């Protein structure tokens, strides 16, 4: 029995120990438009390629980089609609945190809660993982921070990172510089 026989059911491990749906989600991310982020000593920069399907599309209406709080922003590679849903959930969580603790949510907390949401969708019935990887950039009292969150729900802190198409070229470039 090969891996492919396990690729339909998200919540079943394959014999090689992988969740094949998540691998597929990462493929979806890998074919999305490039986005990257760099952490500087006094801030973070995130950027993405905004390639529209046709010149007729109203360029101002497409927002690939979104605010989650006044000091945390995010960009994605992968499926736009999934990104919209995640942004909405994250904003609500940030707001609930602020209401409860009267403190702007620290970047790590927001990243963790977003990652938890993404992980929930890898362990529930009848849903599929999000087809986006997020780069979350924020500045709080611990200074500038940059995190990448994957469809599996794992997150890492990066000094510089890239995702999407041509990621290997982008990462080589970042490593050099």
């Amino acid at each position, binding site marked *: 029995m090969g891996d492919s026989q396990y690729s339909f059911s998200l919540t079943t491990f394959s014999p090689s120990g992988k969740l094949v749906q998540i691998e597929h989600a990462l493929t979806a991310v890998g074919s999305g438009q490039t986005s990257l982020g760099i952490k500087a000593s006094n801030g973070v920069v995130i950027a993405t390629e905004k390639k529209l399907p046709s010149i007729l599309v109203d360029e101002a209406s497409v927002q690939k980089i979104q*605010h989650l709080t006044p000091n945390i922003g995010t960009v994605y590679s992968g499926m736009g609609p999934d990104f919209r849903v995640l942004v*909405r959930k994250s*904003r*609500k969580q940030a*707001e609930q945190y*602020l*209401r409860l603790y009267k403190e702007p949510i620290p970047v*790590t907390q927001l990243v963790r809660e977003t990652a938890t949401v993404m992980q929930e969708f890898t362990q529930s019935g009848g849903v599929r993982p999000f087809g986006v990887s997020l780069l979350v950039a924020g500045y709080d009292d611990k200074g500038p921070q940059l995190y990448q969150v994957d469809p599996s729900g794992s997150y890492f802190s990066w000094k510089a990172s890239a995702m999407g198409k041509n990621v290997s070229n982008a990462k080589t470039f970042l490593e050099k510089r």
Partner: protein
Amino acid sequence: MSQSSVDVPPKGGFSFDLCKRNDMLTQKGLKAPSFLKTGTTIVGLIFKDGVILGADTRATEGPIVADKNCEKIHYMAPNIYCCGAGTAADTEAVTDMVSSQLRLHRYQTGRDSRVITALTLLKKHLFSYQGHVSAALVLGGVDITGPHLHTIYPHGSTDTLPFATMGSGSLAAMSVFEAKYKEGLTRDEGIKLVAEAICSGIFNDLGSGSNVDICVITKGNKEYLRNYMEPNPRTYVSSKGYSFTKKTEVLLTKITPLSEKVEIVEVAGEAMEE
């Protein structure tokens, strides 16, 4: 029929189980806990360029002044402020909750909040609690459609007015407004009138007192003048102190520590990684 956990709102209709329980307890002789009420005079008026809100700063608990300088003008949005009368906890909680909802809404829409949005969120909440949330509010702000001033009653009804007063001192303040309000007031005239109305409440109503807070909201700008006027300055104990003529002589001074002092030395180590 047993009730499931309180967190989940029951489907269909309101649940007044706790009200029945409270009635039963008062019948059995249990005195209900007294609320921290805000007696209060709160006012608002629309002037040439926007809205001016005013409030006194006394919070009462029955006959006692619980807070001599409390803040009754609550932030709702950068362009909307709300004065609250009634139970202090209720006004705080309700304005806090709606302010949070408005902030989330601003993120989603990318636009400034409208006063009417705040109004609708507030009245929806108050109505669903059928007047048990004792919050009477004066909501004012300037949005894209212009300056607005509304009053909201604890049961959820609202009024839209050019000038408004609420609270126990509302009659005293309203008399000032009715006599002197006119359309097209300038900023200084408006502030003077609001201060006069609040002072009238402070001096003539027992539930209101202390200082005057004012908030001026215009298009694209707001000024929160905390303690704009302090007509009741508090005289403190003289810094010279008291002098007593006859003193008791000190014969012996002996200090015995009750417990041993322990020195705590912090060992530099790794902080817990998340």
